């Protein structure tokens, strides 16, 4: 319940109790993703949406639309084990999406990671001598720090952990869709 307002003359020590009551109240009213309901937390606010994937286990974190390079939280119905999955949420295939770099195109297979708070990102590097591209996707606590101008890093989603509830949620940062690297000198 909402704690009472502060009154003149309240002792300072009583503030601790009122403050904790406020925290408890915030926990009570905090939206929690549930079956069929997605919550996306963004700097501009939260977005609620119903998952369109009937029968899917666990809660997802898609950007609303379905498509390539969606990052969702999946839960195995039997083991209840959760994974962070990058896939094409519009299909059940093995290909998460396509990455296009100039005249080169790469098919990226679905990938899964153990849940952990961090960022799911695409990391593309170019071998200076051979000109070959290496396209990697990772879930890491932080984006890699690099001064390599030839390294292309694209954030896809953010995984957050509610330590009290011991639950994870996924917020899609980049709208789903195939990836095309623009604004770089390519063959």
């Amino acid at each position, binding site marked *: 319940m909402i704690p009472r307002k502060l009154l003149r003359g309240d002792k300072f020590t009583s503030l601790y109790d009122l403050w904790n009551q406020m925290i408890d109240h915030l926990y009570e009213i905090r939206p929690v993703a549930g079956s069929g309901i997605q919550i996306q937390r963004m700097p501009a606010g939260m977005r609620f949406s119903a998952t369109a994937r009937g029968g899917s286990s666990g809660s997802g974190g898609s950007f609303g639309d379905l498509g390539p390079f969606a990052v969702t939280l999946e839960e195995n119905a039997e083991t209840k084990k959760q994974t962070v999955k990058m896939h094409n949420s519009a299909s059940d295939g093995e290909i998460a999406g396509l990455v296009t*770099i*100039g*005249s080169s195109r790469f098919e990226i297979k679905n990938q899964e990671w153990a849940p952990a708070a961090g960022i799911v990102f695409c990391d*593309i*590097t*170019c071998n*200076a001598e051979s*000109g070959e*591209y290496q396209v990697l996707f990772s879930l890491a606590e932080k984006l890699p720090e690099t001064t390599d*101008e*030839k390294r*292309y890093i694209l954030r896809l989603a953010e995984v957050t952990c509610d330590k009290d509830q011991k639950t994870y949620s996924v917020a899609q940062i980049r709208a789903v869709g195939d990836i095309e690297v*623009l*604004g*770089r*000198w*390519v*063959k």
Partner: protein
Amino acid sequence: MQELNWQAFGFPLVAFLPAWKPAEGLQKALAERLLPFAETWDIETIAETTFLPLLDECRAGREWSLAFDRELRSVAERYLNHTKLDLTDPAEWSNPLWTWEDLLLAAAEGEEKRIADPEKGDLSPEWNLEWAIQRMRAINLLCYAPVPYLYDYLSGSTHNGEPSSPSASISAALKGEEPGTGSGLPASYVNNIYGPDHGWREGSYCCNVVVCKKIYATLPEGFTPDGNVWLFLDVTGADGSEQGFSGSGVTFGMNRFPADAEGVFVTFPDNNIGSGVAWPTRDHPTWGGWKSTSCQAFADYSSLFHFKNESGGETS
């Protein structure tokens, strides 16, 4: 001053670099190639100028490349195509300046199919790596830019009906000769005219005399010629024919002169300019000597350029 060279902007390994950096390098290199035509050699301004807005780097590469090519072409066509020019055989020299087609072909290392030309619609993908490398090569090929030249001459004439022979007329003209300096087409000639053609008495002779003494470059301040400043002088007879040609210091056809340390291309010896010229008759003036039909001076500015092929080859 910001470092200015190809390497500072990622060349030649620009693959997968953000579009801005190599593009900015190309713009600076092109701006430097315009310096031989500027009033002052202001490389500091080029270094300090940001030609491309950083945040605009993702706009269409093809559109940007098209605009760059238009600018590059206008600059390139003012430079001497030294690769086509056989310096040891100036008679082979015809069209001295770069043509756009020749430059693109040379930048593609002679392989026509590899030419990256957005005008032909074959620039794909955007921010085409091959295009960037070829434009670096193209700019490296722009070495010889025109330099102004001047020539000193003496001129005189006799039109008074007094001389009774062509040689006397020439001697009289040379006595009253006046020095001059020109920037057009140098010449050294005698034009003998039979006196009555100009209304003078029978047996008298008139003449016009021009004697070129020296042709020299007017070099930019601080530019020291080091065997890399050339004059190309195409010479014919004074009457426009090979038969009418005479003179020393030049030959009929294309002449090539390197500048000395003072920027002087050629100094002409004093000689008997009128010797061997036929006597004029009524309505038949005669000519002796030479005139130039083209005269252009070029200097290799490579030593002043920052954006150039450091390895010494011409294109890589």
